[in-house]
């Protein structure tokens, strides 16, 4: 008599699959860096060779010259102030020129010494940008009753026209 061999049912144990998947999942969860790049954006002026440079006279009323020296002292229009006062000094000037055309808007010129610490420069630039942002917020609160970031794109464009961010980096001087 031939006994038929009982065939074992072929099956892959899948009960631990979830565990394996969880392990992999954990690995990727830990390894994922969802880092957002944040920072202060700026558009540098185009490079013009020195011999081709043309001096354009800018109305001194428009220009706010911010100078940061190597000790971190700030000079705004001839006055010595601390870095944290920059914002409050620039903001009223911006707000005063909201209704004026583009060629009358405030230009902030930022200049540093070669020995100024980068941190000071960023702090100064931060203050200047804050002044622009807060001015925008105030104008948009007055006009639309909302903050700048809550406006629609067209309204934001309108606000950008009212308070354009014009920051100029002074041409570095030749090394003496």
């Amino acid at each position, binding site marked *: 008599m031939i006994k038929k061999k009982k065939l074992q049912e072929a099956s892959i144990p*899948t009960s631990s*699959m*979830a565990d394996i*998947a*969880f392990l*992999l*999942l954990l690995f*990727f*969860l830990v*390894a*994922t*860096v*969802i880092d*957002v*790049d*944040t*920072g*202060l*954006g*700026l*558009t*540098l*002026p*185009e*490079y013009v060779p020195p011999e081709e440079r043309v001096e354009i006279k800018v109305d001194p009323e428009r220009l706010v010259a911010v100078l940061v020296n190597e000790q971190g002292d700030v000079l705004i229009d001839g006055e010595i102030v601390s870095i944290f006062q920059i914002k409050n000094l620039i903001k009223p000037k911006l707000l005063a020129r909201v209704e004026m055309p583009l060629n009358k808007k405030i230009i902030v010129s930022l200049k*540093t*010494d*070669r*020995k*100024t*610490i*980068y*941190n000071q*420069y*960023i*702090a100064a*630039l*931060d203050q200047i*940008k*804050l002044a*622009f*942002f807060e001015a925008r917020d105030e104008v948009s609160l007055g006009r639309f009753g909302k903050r700048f970031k809550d406006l629609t794109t067209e309204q934001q464009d309108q606000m950008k026209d009212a308070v354009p961010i014009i920051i100029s*980096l002074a041409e*570095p001087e030749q090394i003496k």
Partner: protein
Amino acid sequence: MHFQKRRAGTKQEIPTSSMPDIVFMLLLFFMVTTTLREVDVLVQFKLPEAQAIEKIENKRLISYLWVGKDKRIQINDSIVKLEEVEPIMYGKRQVLPNVIVSLRIDQGVDMGLVMDIQQALRKAYCLRVNYSATLKI
């Protein structure tokens, strides 16, 4: 008398057969979103803090430039000299015309070097920069 316990006829188990599928879906999501760091940062730096920071929306446009505590400059995977910044960045601009240069500069570096890098970027026509900073709380 014999009481028969009344029990609800429904099963009290949570069906776990589809759990691997769900987990695999999550897994796939994370696998797709993970970007393992492509470059090794060779310089040591501590970013400055600022309040008026913005996010860079388009990550594909970003090109990084590191400056460490010891004033070494790194682009891509290698330490470069100051004079090499301009040709490298010019090459990058040819590939990506509206490249944004994210400047990851240590907070203690002096501005002379930063100005020199900026001049190099200007000559290379990489005009959009972003001074990388962390949020000041």
